[in-house]
Structures are given as C-alpha cells and as structure tokens.
C-alpha cells in the first residue's frame, strides 16, 4: 500500500528526473499529484459512459430510419469492425503510451510517439475539439435536464400534437414565435448542468468521474430497459400499427441501398459519434493506465457495452414508439426533421398517450441526461490534464477555469442558436474535426511510431490476443476508410458550407446568419491559436528538447487510487 501511495504521489518518478538532470537536460517540473483509476470495472464503465451518449438514443435511430433501415445496419457493422474497434485500440494505445510520460493530452501524446518539434502543435486539435464540443454538448445536455423537470411537473401536458410540442421546444430554446418560457430558463438549466459537470471533473478520476459512472451507467441501462419494454408492450395505436413494425422498419434490409455511398458514409459517421473516437478523450482516460494494465480486452468491452446500448436499446425506444403513434410515414417525416425533434417533441407527445406517461417521460429524459453527463465529463479531461501537467495548475482550479470559459462560450450558443452558431461548431468540431483527429492519431501512432511498435504497445499487459488481421486493418484499411470519409465529406459538405452555399445545419444561408457564422468560425480559430500559444509557452517553460524525447514517468496503473 505504501508503495502505491508513493507511486500515486509521484515518489517513484525521482530517479527519472535525476537521470534527465545528470544527462544535462533541464529537468522537467515534478509531475502533478498522480491520478489513477480505482478499479478496472470503473475504468470500463467510464470509457463506456464516455461512448454512450445522446447519439445512442437520438442520432442512431434517426440515422437508421433515414438510411434504409437494415441496409444502414449492415454497413454499420462493417464500419464497426473496420473503423470503430480499430480506432478504439489506437486511442487506448496512444493514450497509454502517452501516459508513460505522464501526458494525458494529445500534444504530449503526439510528442511522445513522434520525436519532432511539430508533433506537439499537431496535437492542438486534441484540445480544441473536445473544448468546442464540450460547450455545445453541455448546452444540449441541459435541455434533457430541463425536459426531465418539465415532464415530472407535467408542464407541457395537453400539447398532444407534434406541432404543439415543436412550438414548446422552440419556446424553450428561444427561437420561433412562441414565448411560453422565460428567456432566462435555458441559461439557468445550462448553468446548473455545467456546474454538475465541473464538480465531478474537479473531484478527479477515482473520486469524481468513476463514482459518477458507477451509479450512472447501471441506472442508464435499467431506465433504457424499462423504456424499451414499455414501448414494445404498447398495444397498436390509433393507426393500427404495433411497435414491432418500428423494429421491422429498422431491421428490414433494403439491399438496393447498399450501392448508395451515402449510406456507407452515414453509418461510418455514426460509428464515430457513438464510440467517441476522434476527440482524444478515450486517449486521455487511457493515459492513466500502466504497462501492466490490459487495454485490448478492456477496449473491446467498452465498444461492446456501447453497442448493446445502441443496437439493442437505442433501436427499441424512439423509432418503434414513433411508428406506433405516427405510422411509418409519419416516423420517417419526423426522423427527417432531425433527432432533436424526435427526442424532444415526438417522444413527449408519445408519453402523453401512454399509461404512466409522466414516469416514463421523466425516465426518458433522465436517461438522456445520464448518457450526456457521462460523455461530457470526459471532454474536459484532456484539457484539465494539459493545464495540470504542463502549467502546474491544480485540478480544482483548472476545472473551475474551464467551467468559466465553457459558461461564456455556452452563452453565445444560447443567444445565437437561431442564427446557426451551434450548427457551425457542431459541423466543424463535432463532425469534420473528429475524422481529422482520428486520421492524425492513426498517422502518428501507427505510421510514425511504427505498426510493429503500435501493435506491441497495444498488447502490453493484454488479457487477449487480437487477431492478427487487425494489424493489417489498423495499418491500411482504417486510414484509407478515414481518408475516403474526409474527402467525401470535404467535397459534399465542407466546401459548400465554407463557401456559404448552404448552412451547416442544412437549408439555405440567409444574409442575416452570415455574421454569426463568421463569428463561430472566428471563435474556433481563436481557440486554436490560444491553445497553440499555450503549448509553445508550456514547452518553453519546461525546457523540452523535442528530439530527445520526454522523460519516462511510469503511471501507477489501475488500483493505485484505492
């Protein structure tokens, strides 16, 4: 126990620093008080919680409905094997490798794997993307908290049509003509949601995030299972349609759609969102593992848990419920109008027509809130790690500072929601940016660090042997898949959006929205420049020689925090 305590406090790091000093290099500052996961199950729950988010219950059914149901599912499983699971192993491997040098952020991880002065600057995407996504994701998460309260208090009861509920949702968001909410309501819920997030992040891994997920994840699965059973047991609605038709709608393969490239790209995109790859958050969590800890089996367990939440539970709730009460054509129209309309307008209409609707509706939004918060607490982890490890800022101070920044930026999203500010960040940071980060991770960890080194690194301490075919997949198939997605999205979406030919949220660009779009892009670029300057300052402050490599500071690994 005393060894573990010394290790957690950084006591075992002294020899490395002395060695670095004797070799003539300026010694690194003493690492911040180490962090560790308390248990392996806690780690897997945290990783799975990071992955299981709003996308599992809102985006997935919408995408499946819009892209040929069963055809989408077939391409989805192909993308899971060729893209999702390999990227999970890459992120865990990159993170654990960075952790050997006490680097819980992509600039440090890239510098550890690629001994080049540019590596740390390339890694800036691993700070900008999670920061940007955290801001608007927390805002959307606050809608789930608000609607849980509105449902529990039956605030919208009586609005039994889709149009009436869309009006209610828009009133809450402060867009559209209806004004049945105070303008301060979204601010209040956003502030409360953010404060809860910051509290858990400030408590650290074992005492904060791990404690949260050990309660939240089982609760989430229980709530989802209850809702799935309640939906499937629903008798046929007024249109004479049973919920099983909703399941058939999702699982009936429309083989002709398999030749449609957009279906393959939609499923690949969904795999990205659902597994939370391409944000650096999985890598940040994995950086607290030692070389003794397994990542091959744990990574696979994380992906499997997420897929259970998505394929089994995510497909059984929203679309079957919508099909039961609106028919197949109605559900398709709702899905085409967006996943938020499905979750925040259609589902409340459905719950008003179900027995025990208040309880089920509260459970639905509670489920979404838990799915959201277990993901959003992960998004701040790489940035707090950067501030602690590179600038010596205490965890609590770092969390509070980031909370302040998130609050200020979040207010812009609330005020300018109707001008497409959120859509712009969601596209560049939360859609296109994820693919860019994932491609950079594969290039640095697999191609530059070396396929053999990466493969060996992933297998250190492993409880399973990954089939050798995955070495080929990780080295060639996954990066080619990523390049194809990037080029396709670049041509079909990114360029038209960049040139104002259409809005990031779909639809035409209005002259009124152009200044807000430019402001959104300008703020993202400003965030990037700010983080680049911070990286430059941190590396100079710590007197690093990029080509000599970073001093090794072993992590205590899972269990040291107990």
């Amino acid at each position, binding site marked *: *126990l005393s060894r573990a305590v010394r290790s957690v406090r950084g006591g075992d790091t002294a020899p490395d620093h002395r060695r670095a000093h004797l070799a003539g290099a300026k010694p690194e500052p003493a690492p911040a008080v180490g962090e560790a*996961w*308390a*248990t*392996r*199950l806690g780690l*897997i729950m945290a990783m799975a919680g990071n992955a299981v988010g709003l996308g599992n219950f809102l985006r997935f059914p919408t995408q499946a409905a819009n892209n040929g149901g*069963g055809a989408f*599912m077939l391409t989805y*499983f192909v993308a899971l094997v060729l893209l999702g699971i390999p990227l999970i192993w890459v992120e865990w491997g990159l993170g654990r490798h960075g952790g050997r040098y006490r680097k819980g952020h992509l600039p440090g991880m890239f510098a550890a794997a690629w001994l080049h002065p540019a590596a740390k600057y390339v890694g800036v995407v691993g700070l900008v993307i999670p920061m940007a996504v955290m801001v608007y994701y927390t805002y959307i998460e606050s809608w789930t908290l608000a609607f849980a309260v509105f449902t529990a208090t039956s605030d919208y009861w009586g609005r039994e049509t889709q149009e009436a509920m869309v009006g209610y949702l828009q009133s809450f968001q402060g867009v559209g003509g209806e004004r049945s909410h105070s303008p301060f309501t979204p601010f209040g819920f956003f502030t409360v949601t953010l404060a809860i997030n910051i509290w858990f992040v400030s408590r650290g891994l074992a005492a904060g995030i791990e404690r949260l997920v050990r309660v939240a994840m089982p609760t989430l699965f229980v709530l989802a299972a209850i809702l799935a059973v309640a939906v499937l047991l629903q008798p046929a609605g007024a249109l004479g349609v049973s919920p*099983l*038709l909703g*399941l*058939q709608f999702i*699982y*009936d*393969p429309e083989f002709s759609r398999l030749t449609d490239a957009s279906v393959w790209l939609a499923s690949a995109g969904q795999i990205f969102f659902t597994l939370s790859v391409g944000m650096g958050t999985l890598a940040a969590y994995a950086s607290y593992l030692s070389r*003794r*800890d*397994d990542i091959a*089996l*744990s990574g*696979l*367990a994380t992906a*499997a*848990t997420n*897929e*259970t939440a998505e*394929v*089994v539970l995510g497909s059984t709730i929203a679309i079957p419920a919508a099909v039961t009460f609106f028919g197949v054509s109605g559900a398709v129209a709702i899905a085409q109008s967006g996943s938020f309309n499905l979750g925040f307008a259609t589902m409340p209409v459905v719950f008003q027509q179900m027995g025990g609707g208040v309880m089920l509706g509260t459970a639905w939004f509670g489920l979404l809130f838990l799915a959201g918060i277990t993901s959003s607490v992960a998004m701040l982890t790489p940035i707090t790690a950067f501030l602690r490890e590179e600038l010596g800022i205490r965890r609590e101070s770092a969390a509070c500072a980031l909370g302040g920044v998130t609050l200020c930026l979040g207010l812009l999203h609330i005020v300018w929601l109707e001008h497409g500010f959120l859509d712009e960040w969601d596209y560049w940071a939360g859609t296109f940016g994820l693919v860019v980060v994932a491609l950079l991770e594969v290039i640095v960890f697999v191609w530059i660090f070396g396929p053999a080194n990466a493969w060996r690194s992933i297998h250190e301490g492993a*409880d*399973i042997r990954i089939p050798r075919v995955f070495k080929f997949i990780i080295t060639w198939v996954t990066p080619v898949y990523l390049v194809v997605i990037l080029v396709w999205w670049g041509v079909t979406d990114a360029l038209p959006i960049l040139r104002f030919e259409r809005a990031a949220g779909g639809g035409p660009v209005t002259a009124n929205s152009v200044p807000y779009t430019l402001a959104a892009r300008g703020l993202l670029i400003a965030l990037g420049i700010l983080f680049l300057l911070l990286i430059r300052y941190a590396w100079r402050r710590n007197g690093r020689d990029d080509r000599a490599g970073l001093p090794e500071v072993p992590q205590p690994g*899972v*269990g040291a925090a*107990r």
Partner: protein
Amino acid sequence: MTPLALGFLIASWTGVLGLTVWCFHRVLRAGRRGRRDEGPGDGKAM
C-alpha cells in the same frame, strides 16, 4: 415482422450481447486470475 427482418434483428442482438457477455466474462476471469497469481492486495484491481 418479416422473417428476414426478424432474422437480422436476432443476429444483430445476439452478436452484440454475446460479445458483451464474452468480454465481461474474460475481464472478470482475468481479475480473478490476477488476484490469485499476485497475492492479496497486489493484483489487477477489479
């Protein structure tokens, strides 16, 4: 529900749930083996 859709649903759910159960079975088994091999208080924490 058409037989094809039902078959696809059963195959998808069985595959996903089977993989999840297999993974957690191996995680728990590795934890027990780790504790047995390395002695109390020094094994891989579960």
